[in-house]
């Protein structure tokens, strides 16, 4: 890997994230750790979406559904007394993968706007199932009274420890996605985005690879869901509302589709802007909307595209 200015910026960005708990302590602002933990968790979700959206050209408008699936897996297990994280989290991933396999097998037969609509429809379906889960709080959500516990290896209730757990997961995820998009599998996904008909004509059955990518992305986002519920000690259908899926897309587009670190940066910039702008005005979206519009119009590759440093790939 060549060291480009872009890479240096991303390196500094990750370093800054690594310093957040220390910084919070120095500034005596413990709230920062909580805020950034949430950002990192949503970054995990956005980075997972980027695999299919940025590299695979699959505009899933239902990606937040996995936040709900992962979150409810943790919440419902906790409700029934299973608080072992080694059971909860892998199960959150597994159920998300299962959902992605079934839904992906249906959605990936469509293209373009139809794909967007059908992924949205499935996500809304699950959203309303969540709303109807009266046994688990329905609309009001489900409070998780006992936090996931990883056999005492990680102090889950210690905010900096939990922060570093989330940060480590983000780093591992970015590494895995990096390996995937440069592997034979990743090239097939990108070839399918570039020209699916051609990919089939040279003998590559793209459907199964696209489905596999869809499942990998869903699994990572399911993990993010488990993390999100654990951090908040709470899960409600609101996390899988379609506007949350929209937020994830915005984060990816803002950071740069098909760039490795872009979506993580995009998520954090997005949430910071939300934090800052909403403290200034109730109508912060009125300011944020045009900003996003300008970015999409003039910097098609998002923040990543604004950084110098040659080609990607």
């Amino acid at each position, binding site marked *: 890997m060549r060291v480009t200015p872009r890479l240096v910026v991303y390196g500094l960005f990750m370093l800054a994230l690594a310093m957040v708990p220390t910084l919070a302590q120095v500034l005596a602002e413990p709230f920062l750790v909580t805020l950034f933990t949430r950002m990192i968790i949503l970054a995990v979700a956005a980075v997972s979406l980027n695999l299919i959206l940025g590299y695979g050209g699959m505009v899933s408008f239902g990606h937040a559904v996995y936040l709900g699936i992962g979150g409810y897996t943790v919440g419902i297990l906790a409700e029934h007394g299973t608080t072992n994280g080694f059971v909860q989290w892998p199960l959150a991933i597994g159920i998300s993968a299962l959902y992605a396999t079934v839904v992906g097998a249906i959605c990936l037969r469509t293209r373009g706007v139809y794909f967007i609509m059908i992924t949205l429809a499935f996500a809304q379906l699950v959203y309303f199932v969540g709303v109807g889960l009266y046994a688990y709080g329905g609309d009001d959500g489900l409070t998780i009274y006992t936090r996931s516990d990883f056999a005492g290896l990680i102090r889950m209730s210690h905010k900096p420890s939990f922060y570093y757990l989330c940060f480590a997961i983000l780093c591992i995820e970015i590494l895995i996605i990096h390996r995937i998009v440069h592997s034979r599998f990743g090239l*097939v996904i990108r070839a399918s985005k570039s020209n699916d008909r051609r990919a089939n004509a040279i003998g*590559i059955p793209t459907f199964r690879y696209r489905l596999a990518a869809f499942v990998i992305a869903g699994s990572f986002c399911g993990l993010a869901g488990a993390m999100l519920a654990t951090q908040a000690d709470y899960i409600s259908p609101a996390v899988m509302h379609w506007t949350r899926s929209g937020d994830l897309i915005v984060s990816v587009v803002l950071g740069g589709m098909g760039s490795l670190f872009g979506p993580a940066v995009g998520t954090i910039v997005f949430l910071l802007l939300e934090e800052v702008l909403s403290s200034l005005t109730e109508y912060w979206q009125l300011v944020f909307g045009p900003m996003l519009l300008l970015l999409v119009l003039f910097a098609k590759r998002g923040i990543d595209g604004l950084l110098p440093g040659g080609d990607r790939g």
Partner: protein
Amino acid sequence: MAEPILATRGLIKRFGGLVATDQIDLDVAAGSVHALIGPNGAGKTTLIGQLSGEIRPDSGSIRLEGRDITAAPVHKRCRLGLARSFQITSIFPDFTARENVAMAVQSRLGHSFRFWRRAKSDPARTGPADALLAEVGLEDRGNMPAAALSHGEHRQLEIAMALATAPRLLLLDEPMAGMGVEESVRMVETLQRLKGRISILLVEHDMDAVFALADRITVLVYGRAIATGTPAEIRANQEVRAAYLGADEEEG
């Protein structure tokens, strides 16, 4: 005659009231260049679509080396040795020329559920890709984005991609379309070199190229094969002259 590499029997495809493919029995002899000609709207592209698997025929059968492939999906046919080029250039525009060919090489190297190893520098992919680029005269274009190549180079690149799948039969849908004279000559040379090694089914409007390359010619008019024969036989055929060659002069 030995078993044909490709044989269709009673192939029919209707679009509403239009019979685009009407009872086509086509035999492509192994090792030959078989040209498919006919005026616009004769159903050539529909026929190619059925042979490559993108269009499902309403009835009839397609055999590749004796094996029934009528219901096989596109990628499976490619694995069985049937490669194609498209009438309108179809490449991976955001990949480099080398990566375009390397993807086709990769498809031949077994499944792609390989998630970890870096693929771009893998000599198992790039070695054959570079050799094929050289074979079609694009050896100095390997690192260029495919979108930046000229039209003629795109067509050559498509040939290289098709060859990378180690085909037994090439379906070429108007490989010379939109080419300048020089580029056409180069394409004819490329195809001459392949002749004998790989069977070719060629759809082409450029009659000079067709008569220079083809061992046999089938003439398609309104979805029907009105004549099949050697270039000399086709030239002499009255029905063909009336239906097609005469009209061709008018088209200019």
